[in-house]
């Protein structure tokens, strides 16, 4: 009994403690533990460091300090829900769960609570239909864009035709990994390649049988939708069966340093999509070093600075911060509410000049969000791993996806969601 009473007391105190309401609240649903920590730690560090940079250099956003409180999800849906229930009381301006499973939990909850949700390069693809999902944003690109960009790249590589080619998809057997299948099926009809789908059960440490199948069927190209330990195992397995690595393409979540380093020289030539630039030579890194990492204010130990996932964290934080600036301009005051933040996200527009001002030219694609389109342009680029120099190299410019294939699919899936949940599309201004 005494134990339960102390427990209740401790819980009650824990619940009342929250960030001061005057600050801009950007909670981070991070995962620094569990099987997916290799991607979660650098992302969370980048996310926190960018807000630290804004606080140190600019005194916050529009004069208001940005506060990042972390909640550990371990990529686990139950913990993610628990974190959300805890964070929602503090009126978070935007949540970025970094997990497709948690995203599906949060979409109905945050729509009900009127809090904006931003999923950068993951989550529910059909949330791109802003008229159906007013509170959910998935710019700059979705999985279906990724699938389309990869196929477009392969078209270029194969001299403009994929007729009769065999493409295999190795995917994480979860909502995340299944996302691109429908798009790839459509694209296979359009371009005449045959598609084989090969699931890998989470977390994906054991893939011998999948790669045996690939060895037997000899597909021309292998695409991969993997995450965490599954990536490095797949790259090692591909290297060990002697699959040509430059015919093996991962989605952006399968293209970071921890995914390829374990395979050593065998991973050389492995390709992956990306929606952010790689490396730490961009102009904003000068300020980041001066104000954050060299000043000893970094969230992590500094070892991940400049890696792929760290850059993604920076990028995700930049999108949130720029949306907040936009929202402040629209609202006319600095202390914005989540609803004003949503309007800011919907009006977010980053052109070449804006990116130049941020020091992010070439790092970030141009972004233009509208009421109808919550995913912006959906562009991605191809990167390749250089094992000798231990770094990723950008191969292409930003490639545009096949919008005439993707957008009808988005509308179809959004319509299915409306029928299922009994919601209606809101009116969007034309244009």
């Amino acid at each position, binding site marked *: 009994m005494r134990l339960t009473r102390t*427990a209740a007391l*401790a*819980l009650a*105190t*824990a*619940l009342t*403690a929250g960030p001061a309401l005057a600050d801009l609240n950007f909670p981070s649903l*991070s995962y*620094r*533990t569990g099987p997916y920590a290799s991607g979660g*730690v650098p992302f969370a560090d980048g996310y926190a460091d960018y807000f630290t940079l804004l606080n140190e250099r600019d005194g916050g956003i529009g004069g208001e300090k940005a506060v990042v409180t*972390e*909640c*550990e999800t*371990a990529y686990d*849906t*139950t913990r993610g*829900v*628990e974190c959300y*229930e*805890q964070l*929602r*009381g503090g009126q978070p301006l935007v949540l970025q769960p970094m997990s*497709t*499973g948690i995203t*599906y*939990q949060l979409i*109905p*909850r945050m*729509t*009900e*609570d009127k809090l904006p949700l931003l999923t950068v390069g993951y989550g*529910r693809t059909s949330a791109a239909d802003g008229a159906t999902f007013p509170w959910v944003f998935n710019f700059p690109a979705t999985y279906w864009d990724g699938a389309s960009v990869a196929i477009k790249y392969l078209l270029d590589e194969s001299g403009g035709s994929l007729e009769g080619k065999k493409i295999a998809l190795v995917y994480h*057997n*979860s*909502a995340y990994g*299944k*996302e691109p*299948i*429908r798009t790839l099926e459509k694209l296979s009809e359009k371009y005449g390649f045959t598609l084989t789908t090969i699931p890998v*059960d*989470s977390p994906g440490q054991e893939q011998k049988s999948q790669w045996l199948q690939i060895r037997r069927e000899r597909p021309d190209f292998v695409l991969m939708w993997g995450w965490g330990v599954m990536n490095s195992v797949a790259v090692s397995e591909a290297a060990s069966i002697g699959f040509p690595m430059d015919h093996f393409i991962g989605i952006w979540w399968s293209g970071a340093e921890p995914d390829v380093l374990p395979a050593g020289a065998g991973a050389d030539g492995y390709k992956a999509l990306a929606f952010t630039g790689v490396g730490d030579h961009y102009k904003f890194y000068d300020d980041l070093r001066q104000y954050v990492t060299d000043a000893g204010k970094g969230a992590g130990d500094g070892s991940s600075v400049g890696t792929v996932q760290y850059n993604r964290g920076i990028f995700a934080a930049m999108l949130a911060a720029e949306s907040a600036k936009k929202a402040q301009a629209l609202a006319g005051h600095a202390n914005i509410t989540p609803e004003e933040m949503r309007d800011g996200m919907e009006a977010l527009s980053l052109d070449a000049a804006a990116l130049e001002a941020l020091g992010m030219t070439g790092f970030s694609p141009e972004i233009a969000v509208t009421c109808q389109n919550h995913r912006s342009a959906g562009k991605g680029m191809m990167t390749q791993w250089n094992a000798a120099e231990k770094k990723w190299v950008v191969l292409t410019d930003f490639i545009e996806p096949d919008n005439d294939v993707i957008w009808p699919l988005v509308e179809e*899936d959004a319509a299915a969601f409306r029928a*299922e*949940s*009994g919601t209606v599309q809101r009116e969007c201004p034309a244009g």
Partner: protein
Amino acid sequence: MLYREAGDFKTSYAADEQTFPIRFDRNAFYVLVAVAFLLVPFVINNYWSNAVLLPFLIWSIAAIGLNILTGYCGQVSLGTGGFMAVGAFGAFKLMTAFPDLNIVFVVVLAGFITALVGMAFGLPSLRIKGFYLAVATLASQFFLVWLFNKVPWFMNNSATGHINAPVRTVFGQAVTGAAATPAAKYLFCLAILVALALVAKNLTRGRIGRSWMAIRDMDIAAEIIGVSPLRAKISAFAVSSFFIGVAGALYFTVYFGAVEVTDAFGIRVSFLVLFMVIIGGLGSILGSFLGAGFMVLLPILLKNVMVGGLGWPTDLAAHVELLVVGLLIMVFLIVEPHGLAQLWRLTKEKLRLWPFPH
């Protein structure tokens, strides 16, 4: 002195055979139920409902279910996650096929569907025992999850494998979906839990429960005195699966609202419920509650104390939490192998004598 049964006289058979024969227990039970139904709904907020109490109530139902099978009938099962998935997908198919069906019936019918599936997977228990049966039920876990992941019909052709629970109401109050109030969700699950727990308590005190326990203690002797192993084992599988199916249905419809089978009902779930039952106490309904509380509430409590109270970094807190929970499990199993329910029994013995220990 504090806890006593002396002077508690019964003058009728009915009084002697009631669920809680000791007055102190009975009053404590009434007070607890009254607080849970009449007080908690008015003070509950979203966090307490969605993150703390709902999982506790739902896992308690699952733990009672597995306790019937493993604790009372002695059949080890590692198929809990698969059976919960049957309950969840059964509820989903019923909700989408019959939109007018009340959610109460959906949950109960999902339980019956799971009971049928459980009986089918219980058949091997007639031939194999112990570890071998555990492996057979493990097969059911993997088969069922694979089935729901593989066949699009079960998820109404959802592209991602996610199933979503539509909004359903009880007495005009939404209990599923994001718009449901915390109190409505909580009361709905609590009512089902209390009803099922009373059923379980009384089943285990009656003829059926005694036949389960006879099979558990020595199946050959039980058969010789006339207990049919077929009926006892299959009925244990049926009742247990019914409870687990109801838990799975509530887990999907009320608690999460959207699940994906590999994520929500993996082998992890089977072990989690088995740990609840072992730590709480095999063969005890109270133990099921204590075990569920230990496994569900303790990590949340530790997290809130370490991150919210002490301000530790989240990753350190998560690692310490794993350490502490694991250590406590070991300590409990070494110090008290019969689980938390046995600790309560010992406490009662001590309280009977207190303050005169001799």
